[in-house]
């Protein structure tokens, strides 16, 4: 045990001292921050007004939904089918919002149909407006309220987004912040499995080509050396993630601060300019604009608070480590079977396929996080670290999560065992590249 600690320590220290690690630690957060800030910034610039046709089956919402500078509402009394047909043939509306009769009791049955997806903030606004109306309706219905009832009044409205394609069929897309968070975390897992899995492989090849491996395995078991390397590099990865999270949070917070100050400064300027004309009216206008800004921020905060963050973070760590251990051990086996990195292509191929496939499948899963494809790929351990991560923030049935975790644990135990067998033979084979057939023989060989 003491020896495996020595190996972990060496693997860790030599890597975190490297220039490339330090550069990655600095550049990574900047990229992440850019990834978060730029789309938000771009979105705020986009001012296409959505003119939404409301098909209200309840009659509660007529002229009750407030427009803002992103969306305006028009109320039509016709069937949903007609409205869709009209939308498809390029009518005057950009989307159809369908509020069914059951909305008060089932607030998640509201649907929107569109050809070009409305911005997330527009959908958030609509959900909020609908919730307000339902809340008012309930308040009117009930006169004697207990405190409990009051807190349950505001419904959790979720609009199901439907993309209307040219032939009139619709595709569901859950969209939204939850999926965004999931996809982001899934992508981080994908990136890190690749990045650090390849580091494991390089480390093994380095030991093999340096010819130090035989010296070391005369002191420790090959399996200890392999596991020490995998665990050491996992700790490097965790360190890197930690640094990224801290730095990118700092950067984003910093940028927000700067924006706020900017806003304040420009407001002051405006105020000073407008003072000369009609200070009272201008101030009122600015105050209104201000309140709108904060209300969008509040809405986002509210959405975020709906995500179960302890679960998401716990699962992120689990799938991150599980996926890394699974692929890391396979990468170690590849490293041991070749003499140089240029020989790895043939073996890398079958391992990278499921990884790349999961990112491709992820695009589908985002739109349909509860479909068959999403289910199976989040159970199969080779894709589950990425696919399950997308599904978790949206909500997954506990038994599916448990099944997925158990199958991942079992598979990485199996793959580590297999990799250990290939590894201990491979590292002592100099000067020739093994074939798959030989790898198979190494698997069944006695030590």
């Amino acid at each position: 045990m003491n020896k495996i600690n020595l190996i972990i320590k060496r693997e860790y220290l030599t890597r975190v001292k490297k220039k490339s690690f330090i550069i990655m630690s600095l550049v990574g957060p900047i990229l992440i921050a850019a990834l978060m800030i730029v789309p938000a910034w771009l979105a705020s610039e986009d001012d296409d007004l959505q003119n939404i046709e409301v098909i209200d089956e309840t009659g509660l919402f007529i002229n009750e939904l407030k427009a803002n500078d992103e969306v305006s509402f028009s109320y039509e009394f016709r069937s949903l089918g007609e409205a869709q047909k009209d939308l498809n043939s390029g009518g005057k509306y950009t989307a159809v919002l369908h509020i069914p009769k059951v909305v008060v009791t089932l607030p998640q049955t509201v649907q929107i149909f569109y050809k070009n997806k409305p911005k997330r903030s527009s959908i958030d606004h609509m959900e909020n407006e609908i919730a307000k109306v339902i809340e008012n309706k309930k308040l009117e219905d009930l006169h004697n309220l207990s405190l409990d009832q009051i807190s349950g009044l505001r419904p959790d409205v979720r609009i199901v987004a439907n993309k209307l394609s040219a032939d009139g069929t619709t595709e569901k897309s859950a969209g939204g912040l939850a999926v965004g968070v999931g996809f982001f975390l899934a992508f981080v897992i994908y990136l890190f499995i690749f990045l650090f899995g390849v580091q494991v492989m390089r480390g093994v090849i380095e030991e093999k080509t340096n010819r130090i491996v035989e010296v070391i395995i005369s002191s420790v078991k090959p399996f200890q050396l392999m596991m020490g390397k995998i665990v050491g590099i996992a700790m490097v990865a965790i360190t890197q993630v930690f640094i990224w999270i801290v730095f990118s949070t700092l950067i984003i917070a910093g940028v927000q601060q700067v924006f706020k100050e900017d806003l304040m400064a420009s407001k002051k300027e405006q105020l000073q300019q407008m003072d000369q004309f009609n200070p009272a009216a201008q101030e009122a206008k600015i105050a209104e604009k201000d309140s709108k800004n904060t209300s969008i921020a509040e809405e986002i905060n509210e959405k975020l608070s709906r995500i179960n963050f302890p679960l998401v973070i716990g699962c992120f760590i689990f799938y991150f480590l599980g996926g890394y251990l699974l692929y890391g051990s396979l990468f170690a086996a590849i490293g041991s079977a070749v003499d140089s990195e240029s020989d790895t292509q043939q073996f890398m191929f079958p391992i990278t396929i499921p990884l790349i496939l999961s990112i491709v499948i992820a695009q589908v899963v985002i739109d349909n996080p509860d479909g068959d494809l999403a289910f199976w790929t989040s159970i199969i351990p080779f894709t589950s670290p990425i696919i399950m991560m997308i599904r978790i923030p949206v909500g997954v049935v506990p038994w599916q999560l448990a099944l997925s975790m158990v199958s991942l644990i079992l598979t990485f135990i199996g793959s580590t065992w297999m990799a250990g067998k290939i590894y201990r033979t491979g590292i002592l084979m100099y000067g020739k590249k093994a074939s798959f057939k030989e790898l198979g023989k190494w698997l069944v060989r006695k030590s």
Partner: protein
Amino acid sequence: MSSILRAENIVKQYASHRALDDVSIEIPTGCVFGLLGPNGAGKTSFIRIINQITGPDSGQIFFNGEPLAAKHVEQIGYLPEERGLYKKMEVGEQAMYLAQLKGMSKAEAKKKLIYWFKKFGIAEWWNKKVEELSKGMAQKVQFIVTVLHEPKLLILDEPFSGFDPINANIVKAEILRLKEEGTTIVLSTHNMGSVEEICEHIALINNSKKILGGAVKQIQEDFKEGVYDITFKGNMIGFTNALWTGCELLDSKENGTYQQATVRLTGHKSPNELLKAIIGNVEVYGLREIIPSMNDIFIKQVEETNQPKEMSHE
């Protein structure tokens, strides 16, 4: 005589070939033991089994009388033929790491490393990167970390390859000094010169089988063929005439005013009988028994054991 290592009937089978076939080797405590054999004979397989890098398919190994176990690793020092270092690490850091892997404490490792680094004249390289070292210097570092933990059994696979003659001598002197201190040393090599010079016992492995083993002096004694070099003055024809049927003239040449002849005696004849026969015809200046070199024995044995195999190919 006690033996530090006793291997009994070791068999090691790889997928397509048998690397060791019923090999039994006994290494006496405190000697320098030569493990000889052509490339691919099975030497490295045997050494890896001693180091517990791989296990035998059948057969047993005893270390100081106990069955070989994981705890013995710390009493063995191994310098593989394929040896290297982490290029990007600092020399001292690297040596510390390898020493600790052998079970030494940090303080102990540091103290001993400083002693050895000074002794080998590489102390100022402690903080340099390994990739800056010359090949010879890297070899010195490797040798140091192999012997640092004062193993009872030291296994050196081709220790002299890569050393210039000066450094090879330093290492050779170190090997002999360690032997004086009681370390048993196993030397796997093709360099027969060094075998005769420093090895007391050998085992010769060819085609996965041990074909010869024992004390070097005894083996040479066993392989003597009764061949003598005679230096004399006088007529070569007279010399030849004096030889009787139990004698065979192998070679003769003129060496200045002397004549030189190589003669093989057959049928357990003694050199005295040879002298008696020729002493009346020529004037004898020297008689020397030719002791077969380990090189000759090696080549002869390997060729002999390869013979039937080659025939079967035809």
